[in-house]
């Protein structure tokens, strides 16, 4: 352990450049001779493109080229793939129609790219785009998740009832039997509202072709540059992998939205060869609203069967998930294996059966967004448990405790094998922190001030550390989800770590360096973390699903094992001792039973001078790599409790207290972990109270700017009060479970449970805006008066 090792709340190394404006983002990159791309997007949700006349656009001064879907097809550039194969319950494969980067025949959502204009300047490209004449035949649109399967509109000819798949998981017969034996059944119908990710840095891309080497370079806002390269090479036929370098430099937030391969970066790479100039595109914020993959958008009917004591017997769930106009890269995996596999929550439920239909609509594609499936699962289970407790007159904490999984490992009926946890411990600590016993008194006090007070629980679980490659492969994933690392020790003893993880706000440059500091006994300023460049890092799977600590750092840890082994051998040569007698501790090599010792930097230098080692026995140098594949998902879990006050006159909900007690396993940097919880909870509260992507009937995104799309702000939030419990994660060497998504997963249920507790009824949907809460207060009051 060093002062900058595991567990130390050291300030983030990367913040100096971020805070002083010295970061290097994609839009900061400029290449000689660079031209600019402007994407002409469909203003209609659903239309035939009858014709594109480029003459007026090409006549604009500075316009170099106008490219369309026809040009892509002529160059045999493929469509964007759906990377997770889902099989319907009748055995048929999912329906994923082609997704061309520029429309070919039809447009399927407002913002669907139709053509790209390449010009000398950004302004000329825009002028060219405005001048481009596109002839549309407008079609009726379907946008509502619940209407997709019955609408007369057909988004894709290949997909009857606009359905991509009808999938199921669990045991239907056992679940039916559980319901037949139930003493009480609780039923809920809920909507998980559609969200826009809103990373602070808009997406951007800069493609460049080098005719001398026939190779491309792409700078892009990606959470996983190697996966982007693989997809562009293997599926899109842009360039062979070894002729395409993808660089994801500093990236200003992703939340999932920068995982996927999008039309724009693909087109920039391809177009750079066509026009013989580097091609750059940076999204405007209004483009981000229309073209970044959205999140969530489920409607769900759920039923929970209980016995007379409130023990859960069975759980039945039917969900319709909106994919939008096309199936984005991970979109089909999100409402299936990242969602329904978590429906057991923290509970021992003997029988579960879940059905998920995924549908196409004339809306922006939906894909993984912070939490990805797990917030949706948590919202279903944590809402229905709360409602069941109220219906049965049992304290919601008591009902939870009665049903918690208490023995580990625990096999749920929906694939997951929970390996470690103590759900009672986090619940107890959270109840103590929020002073649950004092709630009744606080509620009376609020009532005296004319306010309705409520309290809500969310005892969430998530599956992170994504994921064991064999397991996800058997479930239809197109890739393995291991991670790679290479540790390069320089002669002077400082260290470069190349990682396949990608940092876009998580603070890897600090936490990963802390691991190295801890293992090698050197301060973190002696450690450089290198990521985000396919020419530097050989391969990697990138950052999402709270996987970089559990999987990415485990790979580094394995590489460090090898480095230390090698360094011990070097030391053994230098100190003329048996390698088995070399001990390494706090940066110093010693020979057991002697006073001989060598410092880390002495050994590293000698590894490279190689004067003191017998190179016939031992290679010079000090560099090792590792690929780490986890043995299981990790299962972060915890208890969040939210307390709200509602102003009956206005419908405004104020979060007056919020307690989060999380079990993330080993914590590398508590300050960064707390920051992750703060940010996650803020996003979860945003979904619960403010955020909503709203389409009108014609398919226009009504909430397409910050004028109408509400983002949570500091004054919407209280000072969160955090606590931690700890059970070590057995599936990786560091015991890390992951912390990046927990807040966004737990918070919506906690907030809505608190609001419904305050209201005294369950009739409110997310986001619980002041208007909705006001109506919920009023309609219930009228209903009571009428009785």
């Amino acid at each position: 352990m060093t002062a900058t090792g595991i567990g130390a709340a050291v300030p983030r190394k990367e913040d100096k450049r971020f805070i002083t404006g010295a970061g290097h983002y994609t839009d900061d990159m400029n290449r000689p001779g660079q031209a600019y791309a402007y994407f002409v997007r469909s203003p209609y949700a659903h239309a035939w493109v009858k014709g594109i006349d480029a003459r007026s656009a090409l006549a604009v001064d500075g316009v170099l080229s106008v490219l369309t879907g026809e040009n892509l097809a002529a160059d045999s550039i493929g469509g964007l793939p759906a990377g997770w194969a889902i099989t319907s319950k009748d055995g048929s494969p999912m329906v994923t129609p082609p997704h061309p980067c520029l429309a070919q025949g039809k447009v399927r959502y407002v913002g669907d790219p139709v053509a790209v204009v390449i010009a000398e300047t950004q302004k000329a490209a825009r002028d060219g785009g405005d001048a481009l004449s596109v002839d549309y035949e407008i079609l009726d649109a379907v946008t509502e998740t619940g209407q997709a399967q019955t609408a007369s509109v057909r988004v894709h000819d290949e997909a009857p009832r606009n359905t991509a798949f009808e999938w199921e998981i669990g045991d239907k017969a056992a679940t039916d039997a559980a319901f037949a034996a139930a003493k009480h059944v609780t039923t809920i119908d809920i909507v998980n509202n559609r969200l826009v990710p809103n990373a602070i840095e808009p997406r951007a891309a800069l493609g460049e072709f080098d005719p001398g080497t026939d190779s491309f370079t792409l700078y892009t806002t990606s959470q996983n540059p190697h996966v982007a390269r693989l997809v562009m090479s293997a599926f899109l036929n842009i360039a062979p992998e070894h002729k395409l370098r993808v660089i994801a430099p500093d990236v200003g937030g992703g939340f999932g939205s920068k995982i996927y391969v999008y039309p724009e970066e693909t087109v920039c790479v391809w177009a750079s060869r066509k026009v013989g100039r580097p091609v750059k595109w940076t999204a405007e914020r209004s483009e981000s609203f229309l073209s970044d993959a959205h999140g969530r958008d489920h409607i769900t009917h759920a039923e929970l069967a209980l016995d007379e004591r409130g023990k859960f017997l069975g759980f039945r769930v039917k969900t319709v998930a909106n994919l939008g106009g096309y199936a984005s890269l991970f979109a089909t995996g999100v409402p299936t294996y990242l969602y329904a596999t978590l429906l057991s929550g923290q509970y021992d439920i003997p029988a579960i059966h879940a059905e998920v239909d995924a549908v196409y609509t004339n809306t922006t594609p939906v894909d993984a967004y912070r939490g990805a499936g797990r917030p949706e699962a948590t919202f279903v289970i944590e809402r229905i448990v709360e409602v069941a407790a109220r219906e049965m007159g049992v304290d919601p904490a008591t009902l939870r405790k009665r049903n918690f999984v208490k023995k580990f490992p625990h096999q749920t009926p929906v694939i997951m094998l929970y390996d470690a946890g103590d759900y009672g411990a986090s619940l107890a600590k959270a109840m103590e922190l929020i002073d649950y016993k004092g709630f009744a008194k606080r509620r009376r006090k609020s009532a005296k001030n004319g306010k309705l007070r409520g309290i809500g629980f969310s005892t969430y679980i998530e599956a992170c550390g994504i994921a064991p490659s064999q397991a996800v492969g058997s479930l239809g994933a197109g890739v393995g989800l291991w991670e790679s690392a290479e540790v390069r020790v320089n002669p002077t003893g400082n260290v470069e770590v190349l990682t396949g993880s990608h940092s876009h706000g998580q603070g890897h440059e600090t936490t990963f360096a802390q691991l190295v500091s801890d293992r090698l006994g050197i301060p973190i300023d002696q450690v450089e973390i290198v990521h985000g460049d396919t020419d530097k890092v050989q391969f990697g799977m990138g950052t999402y699903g709270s996987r970089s600590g559990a999987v990415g750092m485990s790979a580094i840890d394995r590489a460090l094992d090898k480095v230390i082994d090698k360094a011990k051998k070097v030391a053994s040569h230098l100190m003329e001792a048996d390698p088995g007698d070399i001990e390494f501790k706090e940066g110093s090599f010693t020979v057991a039973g002697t006073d001989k010792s060598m410092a880390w930097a002495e050994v590293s230098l000698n590894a490279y001078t190689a004067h003191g080692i017998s190179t016939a026995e031992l290679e010079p140098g000090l560099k090792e790599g590792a690929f780490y594949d986890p043995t299981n998902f990790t299962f972060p879990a915890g208890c969040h409790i939210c307390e709200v006050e509602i102003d009956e006159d206005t419908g405004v909900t104020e979060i007056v207290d919020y307690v989060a007690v999380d079990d993330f396993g080993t914590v590398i940097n508590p300050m960064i972990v707390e920051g992750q919880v703060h940010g996650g909870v803020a996003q979860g509260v945003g979904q619960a109270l403010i955020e909503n992507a709203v389409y009108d009937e014609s398919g226009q995104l009504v909430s397409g700017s910050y004028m109408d799309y509400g983002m949570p702000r500091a004054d919407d939030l209280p000072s969160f009060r955090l606590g931690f419990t700890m059970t070590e994660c057995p599936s990786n060497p560091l015991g890390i479970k992951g912390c990046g998504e927990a807040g966004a997963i737990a918070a919506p249920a906690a907030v809505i449970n608190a609001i419904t507790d305050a209201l005294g009824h369950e009739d409110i949907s997310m986001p619980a805006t002041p208007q909705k809460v006001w109506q919920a207060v009023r309609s219930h009051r009228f209903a009571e008066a009428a009785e």
Partner: protein
Amino acid sequence: MYAFDYHRPSSVRQAANMLKSNGEAKLLAGGQTLIPTLKQRLAAPEVLIDLNGVEGLDVIELKGRTLHVGAMARHADVANSEVVKEAIPALAALAEGIGDPHVRHCGTIGGSVANNDPAADYPAALLALGATIHTNERKIGADEFFTGMFETALEDGEIITKITFPVPRRAAYSKFPNPASRYALVGVFVSKRGSEIRVAVTGAGADGVFRLPGFEDALSKRFAAKSLDGLTVDADDLNGDIHASAEYRAHLIGVMAKRAVAAA
């Protein structure tokens, strides 16, 4: 943004001449509405006349019982002015609640008033305080100035130079912000000066800011929140959108009016 010619006059007279000789010209004050509109290519003026080079348009002073606020006074200037805080604290508080720090340090009272955004805060203050809008050509009473959504009594070539406010005895502004934009979903400004009571509502009206004579009458009898009990606002003339129906806005007008009276 489209290309435009940019002028930076140093006097109001020069600006007015430029405005008259360029039919398609727009005045640039704080730019908090105009610049985003230009960036989105929703406006394409051929000429932009920037008033930021005109000196003396941002003076704030109290003359007798009248507060003078120069048209180019920034929202932050009004919010932080000791003169305003002393004379009409409700006006300083209103300015403090506009937008965010960036907006408050750029946006101007003259720009806001001339734009007459139906969700802007200042129009409610001007109407409820019985303010006078001074231009390079005349003086216009607030009651005559705000003529409809984004519409005012300003003629072509007319430039607002300052706003004058008679100092009230009591005044307060109560705003219910749009959860997304933080503009006023409903904002109610009330004032009492001698026997004159004024209640003005922004954010809610289909035609922009308006007064509530029924509320004013009730408050004339007794200036207390209780006087408004039982009074309702007709939702027919109000805006409805994804954030608030006309009915909800009508309700909020009552709530915000009571809160303003209680705070005044």
